[in-house]
């Protein structure tokens, strides 16, 4: 349980890849043709943020952050469900 040199290089490279991959859902969020496209892009952004936090646990060796990842993944995925339920009720009437 100690971050060696190889491991910190790999963690920095994967943080860079994840940060670059955060750009594409933002483009879809701005130019999405319909509302479900935008909700889907928000879901993708939240999943990538959870992945970034998982890499950051390895980089900083603070195992307390696993609790925070649990709560944030639960809340953000529930948020997409709640938005789509509201949209369904709005479209039904």
């Amino acid at each position, binding site marked *: *349980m100690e971050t*060696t040199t*190889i*491991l910190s*290089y*790999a*963690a920095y*490279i*994967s*943080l860079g*890849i*994840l940060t*670059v*991959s*955060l*750009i*594409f*859902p933002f*483009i*879809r969020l701005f130019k999405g043709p*319909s*509302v*479900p*496209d935008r*909700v*889907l*892009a928000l*879901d*993708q952004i939240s*999943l*990538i943020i*959870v*992945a970034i936090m*998982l*890499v950051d*646990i*390895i980089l900083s060796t603070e*195992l307390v952050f*696993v*609790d925070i*990842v*649990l709560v944030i*993944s*639960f809340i953000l*995925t*529930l948020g*997409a*469900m709640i938005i*789509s*339920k509201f*949209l*369904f009720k709005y*479209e*039904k009437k």
Partner: protein
Amino acid sequence: MIELLIAFLLLTGSLVAFVGAMGILRFRNLFSRMHAVTNVTSFSILLLLAALNLFALDWIVFIKSIIIFFVLINLSPMASFMLAKVSKQMDNNRANRE
């Protein structure tokens, strides 16, 4: 030796997340974009959780990461199913209006 395995899992997980993020921009309609988000990004979270468990080697972290993975693998398809229902309802409303 285990560091190389952890580094391989980290790089593979982030590359899989990159492929899934390109899928949401390149695919043509909503349902294939839903496939890209739900399958690919959950798989990258699984790989990163495996790397974290090999790094920590702790029982509490193992149990918590099992809970995280089950929450994600159950709630993400539910969200995409409800979004598909919303999209179908919007199409029906548009067809009724015309």
